[in-house]
């Protein structure tokens, strides 16, 4: 039987183009921050989960093997996983599983990405694509999102204005976030006037590429209660994935993310939550592109299917709203170092602990949800955390 697992600390650092440090040095900062936050030393850590999404970005095969020291994992069990963008949450789920299984009591999870080492991001992204059916076509990430976004807007009658509202909200929220790469005070008009990358995705619908890392420490119930008198429990985890043949799937899920609904349901079932909107106080959803925040709010049940537009129009997801989403700024405002999108989990934790500084939302936050998305319209990972 799985035992209860809590988060006892999180480590943050600024997302930016970080050329001063190598990977080891970069992750040392967040590992140290997480240990300080939890009041622990490296000795207390039983195992480390360390990972990034795409080795081709930092140009080192098996890069996590060269970052052992900085992670605190020297001569400890160290494991990595990657599910592209959803690594942001699948990595901490692996860390959670280390503890829930009973094998280890205290586990540090570090997610990192060093995208600035690479000078041809597009060339790297192209190596993601199926070499027979996709690569020769010249697909790239903006086009990939153009395909999906168009289907989504069409399916539910949503608009570019809705997308723009996500950008305005999140970039504005990031002004309060000391770790954010690109906080911006902009208007819907600014977004609508920004150049198209691939309709309907525009420059200001896209999160910036960046470097950075995040760390989270998980602990088993009895140990967590020794470390802190306010443990934040992992209440639910979920994962879902669909076939790599996105052009030939059985489900029309470019509009409705069936694999994401699946992941959310798993997490809610595990957490015993039947009415998400009554229980979830706060959400950090994966928004590499603005329309993704909308799709994910629907998949996570934070609004009705197709209702993401209304959620934005009514201000529900604003910082002061009934169900704030991405008060940190999300990927749009903070930056998108793929795996280090684990920041979404970190901010959920900070919100619950009232350690979110100027990003702190006015309402009481006891239960929060976060997610990651990745692959060829393919993976979703979800985590729900909260106090008893």
């Amino acid at each position: 039987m799985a035992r209860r697992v809590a988060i006892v600390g999180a480590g943050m650092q600024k997302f930016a183009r970080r050329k001063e440090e190598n990977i080891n040095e970069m992750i040392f900062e967040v590992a140290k921050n997480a240990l300080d936050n939890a009041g622990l030393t490296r000795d207390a850590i039983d195992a480390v989960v360390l990972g990034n999404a795409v080795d081709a970005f930092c140009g080192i095969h098996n890069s996590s093997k060269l970052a052992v020291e900085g992670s605190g994992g020297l001569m400890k069990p160290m494991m990595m996983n990657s599910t592209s963008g959803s690594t942001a949450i699948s990595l901490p789920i692996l860390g959670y599983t280390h503890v829930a299984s009973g094998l280890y009591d205290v586990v540090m999870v570090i997610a990192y990405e060093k995208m600035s080492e690479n000078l041809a991001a597009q060339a790297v992204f192209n190596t993601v694509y199926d070499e027979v059916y996709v690569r020769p076509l010249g697909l790239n990430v903006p086009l990939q999102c153009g395909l999906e976004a168009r289907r989504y807007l069409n399916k539910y009658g949503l608009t570019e204005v809705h997308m723009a509202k996500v950008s305005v909200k999140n970039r504005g929220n990031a002004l309060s976030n000391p770790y954010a790469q690109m906080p911006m005070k902009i208007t819907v008009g600014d977004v609508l006037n920004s150049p198209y990358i691939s309709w309907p995705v525009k420059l200001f619908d896209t999160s910036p590429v960046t470097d950075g890392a995040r760390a989270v420490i998980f602990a088993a119930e009895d140990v967590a209660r020794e470390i802190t008198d306010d443990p934040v429990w992992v209440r639910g985890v979920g994962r879902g994935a669909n076939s790599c043949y996105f052009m030939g799937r059985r489900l029309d899920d470019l509009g409705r993310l069936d694999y994401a609904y699946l992941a959310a349901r798993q997490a809610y079932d595990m957490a015993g939550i039947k009415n998400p909107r009554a229980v979830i106080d706060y959400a950090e959803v994966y928004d590499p592109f603005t329309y993704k925040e909308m799709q994910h709010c629907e998949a996570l049940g934070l609004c009705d299917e197709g209702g993401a537009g209304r959620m934005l129009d009514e201000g529900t997801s604003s910082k002061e709203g009934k169900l704030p989403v991405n008060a940190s700024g999300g990927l749009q405002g903070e930056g998108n170092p793929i795996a280090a999108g684990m920041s979404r989990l970190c901010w959920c934790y900070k919100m619950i602990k009232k350690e979110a500084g100027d990003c702190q939302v006015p309402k009481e936050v006891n239960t929060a949800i976060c997610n990651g998305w990745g692959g060829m319209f393919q993976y979703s990972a979800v985590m729900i955390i909260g106090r008893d």
Partner: protein
Amino acid sequence: MGKRVAIIGIGVTNCEERPDLSHKELLFQATRKALTDAGISRDDIGSAFTTSYDFLEGRSLSNQYTLDSIGGVMKACDLRLGEDGIYGVCAGYMEVMAKPLDIVVVGSVQKVSERREEEDAFQKIVLATLDPVFNRPVCNTVPVIGLEYALAAMEARSYMHRYGITEEQMAKVAAKNHKNALKNPRAKKAKKYSVKDILDSEVFSWPIKRLEVAQMTDAACALVLASEEVAKRLTDKPVWVTGVGWCSGTSYIESRDLSSSAYLRAAAQHAYNMAGIKHPSEEIDVAEIYDTYAYKELQYCEALGLCGEGKAGKLIDEGVTEFGGALPVNPSGGLLGEGNAVGTSGLIRAANAAYQIRGDAGEFQVPNVEIAVAQGWGGIPTYCGGVVVLSRW
């Protein structure tokens, strides 16, 4: 914890080049076999993992493509563990312990035939694994061909220097494993070599000789894991995973004690503690060890506690690890005999060890196996590895 985890299904393809199959198709074959072996259908799968290395695949986010083949469509998603296959067993173990109602599939595939060997593709990948500031520039000044052998040679030399391990002893390991593979129907490239053949083979970088290096091969492997209550319903021959351990040593080549594998010792210690093994050399009946290079088997025998530190030379001289010996090592032929399917080979070590426990190893079955050990390594030039202890009871 009171609850246990078992391997209830095994599927391994032949070790041979299959340029006619895509990597998805090859992995499907292994997974299909494993599901049939376990007596389950895809509907029964809870979650599915693969272990794979992006650069070796030539694809970033390589796990996306193995999802369908592992039965993972619309399941708890496929985690790409960028680790050796043995870590897949460890991760699968944890997953089952955390979710005891779930059946977990772990798979791995390697298509070496997709890398253009004549252009030293693998050597370039080894180069890409090295630290880009301190190590790569130096290695860039020498021909990349043979880079892995040079790196292995440095380690082998250090090991030999410290403990007096000889070339003959290393050659004996290679001869043993090549011979053992003749009994393994999946080892399609098995061939018999004498110790003299091996000593006379081309020296790549002293002391590493051609016949002491496992040749690359394609292969796929899948295992099905389940909790005790599920396993007991589905099979009367569960292979219990009684111990797991893995460990990463220093990133810095310069700081490594190359004469021994401390990381593997730590991993083994953890696995043995879990399994309640106090005297490995007495309690373990068979071991499947990651022998990309012959000297690694000797080093790992020591790290696994099958003999004392520095004593593996004596072990092979006395025939302890021969097929008919007191503690057979790599009765399957190991990587030297089967071929090097890189990350997949770690999972195949576990599969071979599981076959031994079940009594299903056919011609290379060792009699009366109750406890088996399988070990994996991140491969040159990494300094990490994992250990799994399997038991009949």
